[in-house]
């Protein structure tokens, strides 16, 4: 197991460098001169501009800038904005907001997704099964931002069940955005659980358990579910990372001041370091989650541990 984890860890190193380099290159190519953009009513003197360029390594070639950035990153330094604020401070301020949204969405999709999946999977072809299949297909087809608007309009404005936007109502203000954000993954969880459960229920050991005279609840709960949830568990780990990145649109609709809005502000303000910092954090989360998936697989399914 140790060797397995070590190998996966080694494999993710080039992935990290490659992905961050692509993003770094793109941000480097963002149009406009960020230093000149700092000019207010009184223009900054040429020498001060030159000093700023020096300070932010703006005159170095791309590769050198990237190497310096990585050097800082290795010490936990995400760089600072052109107004002197450390990027890590911004990340620490904004990520918890997005994380809260993502975690609520996560809880919502697990709860409802598993229930729907199990109900559909237990009786294939039943009314419940068809209901889940049809409703999930429809949810997949409706783009998230349309779903967000409709939910905001119907549940927030018309029915007044939820706060419409913003985060002033504490956790409750995240409820509706979380439902919208989690809806797509909910579909995948429901379908994955259903397919997996249907497969497992066909296997020999389930027939043995039934032949032994175990109750239906025990056969399903202890024997079938445990194994059929392996693919679901691994999907969940990847999904938590994807939710953090996918929250941008939902944040925009519900006016939640998380990393999504920060990315837009940073792009508009030509704060390259903030953009790179946020995307880099996203890449790190992705790599971490994938690592967890691989370890989870090894723990849950002994067959995979064999090299």
């Amino acid at each position, binding site marked *: 197991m140790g060797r397995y984890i070590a190998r996966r860890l080694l*494999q993710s190193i*080039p*992935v*990290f460098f*490659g*992905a961050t380099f*692509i*993003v770094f290159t*793109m*941000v480097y*190519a*963002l*149009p406009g001169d960020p230093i000149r953009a700092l000019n207010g009513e009184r223009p900054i003197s040429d020498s001060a501009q030159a000093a700023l360029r020096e300070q932010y390594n703006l005159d170095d070639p791309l590769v050198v800038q990237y190497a310096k950035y990585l050097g800082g990153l290795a010490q936990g330094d995400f760089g600072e904005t052109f107004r002197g604020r450390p990027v890590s401070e911004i990340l620490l301020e904004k990520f918890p907001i997005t994380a809260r949204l993502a975690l609520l969405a996560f809880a919502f999709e697990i709860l409802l997704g598993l229930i729907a999946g199990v109900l559909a999977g237990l009786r294939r072809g039943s009314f419940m099964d068809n209901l889940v299949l049809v409703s999930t*297909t*429809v949810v*997949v*087809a*409706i*783009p*998230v*931002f*349309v779903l967000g*608007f*409709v939910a*905001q*309009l119907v549940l927030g*404005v018309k029915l007044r069940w939820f706060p419409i936007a913003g985060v002033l109502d504490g956790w409750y203000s995240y409820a509706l955005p979380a439902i919208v954000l989690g809806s797509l993954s909910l579909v995948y969880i429901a379908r994955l659980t259903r397919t997996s459960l249907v497969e497992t229920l066909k296997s020999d050991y389930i027939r043995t358990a039934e032949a032994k005279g175990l109750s239906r609840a025990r056969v399903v709960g202890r024997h079938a579910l445990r194994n059929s949830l392996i693919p679901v568990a691994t999907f969940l780990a990847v999904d938590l990372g*994807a939710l*953090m*990145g*996918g929250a*941008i*649109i939902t944040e*925009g609709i519900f006016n939640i001041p998380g990393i999504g809005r920060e*990315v*837009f502000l940073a*792009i508009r303000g030509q704060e390259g370091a903030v*953009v790179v910092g*946020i*995307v880099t954090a*996203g*890449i790190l989360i*992705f*790599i971490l989650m994938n690592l967890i998936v691989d370890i989870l697989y090894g723990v849950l399914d002994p067959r995979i541990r064999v090299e």
Partner: protein
Amino acid sequence: MSEHDPRRGRDTIVEDEEEEEARPGEGSRATSFVPAEGATAAAAAVEGGASTYQASLWGDAWRQLRKNPLFLISGALLVGFIVIAIAPGLFTNIDPAGANCDLGNSVDRPSRGHLFGYDIQGCDYYTRVLYGTRVSLTIGLLVVGFDVVIAIVLGSIAGFFGRFWDGTLSRIADIWFALPTTLAAIVFLSVVGERGLLQVSAVLIFLGWPTLMRLMRSSVLSGKEADYVQAARALGASNWRILRVHILPNGIAPVIVYATIAVGIIIAAEAALSFLGVGLQLPNISWGLMINAAQNRILSSPHLLLFPALFLSVLVLTFIIIGDALRDALDPRLR
């Protein structure tokens, strides 16, 4: 093959019966043909059957799809969308961008003659929404078309030649997988100054190929081990011929299935990016832009949101259902 004649004879008869069952449409022709030929009927039937009915993956899939009502409905819808995209003028006489817009009609509700009402500029919304089909469909098909080509080329190289090529290409795909798609698309599109159809498509192509490539790779990898590929190699077929004639026709099925669904995903992605303000720009006619403009008027003029959102969702749904139907039809285990 067996050396005993009796057994062989029995096998062919069984095979023949199966074929008869499997082709209700052509059965009558074959049976009327066999008696006319006389005594050597059995052998002739087998040969004749083999040439008229080849149990190809795609033939079987088509036979099954023809009977699937969901596929027929969504197929008809897709044809409708394509006609609208190619010739929106067939359904409306109004020029979408032109002088017919009257600010006096701004955000008027739907009425007779103007089924979808008017947008903020006072343009006929029905016309605008119809013309939006073209952009969505073009981007969806363009992006996935290019990505499929990239996937087939890179996936075949990685899967077929293995070792160095597989290692390199798969690691590159891993890098792409690690990019957070929405974030990356926003950053990349911010770099582009003027964003038209081509620029948005290019970014989506750039970000979209790895999943398809991975599918193609694993497909080629498993196809390479098949007996008929070994047989072709033993007969001296070249790599190119083996790939083109033996591996690709069967191995491409999962790629086609996913590509169909991906068209829907890309169409939704374009709309989302345009909605966020980093996709297409005016004067392009895009559903995402329309929904963006509707954003602040949901309460007073819900029709501004309703119609583009409806068209968008139905188009995406069409591709997803066709993809689902294709998957069921192309997977022999599900039959």
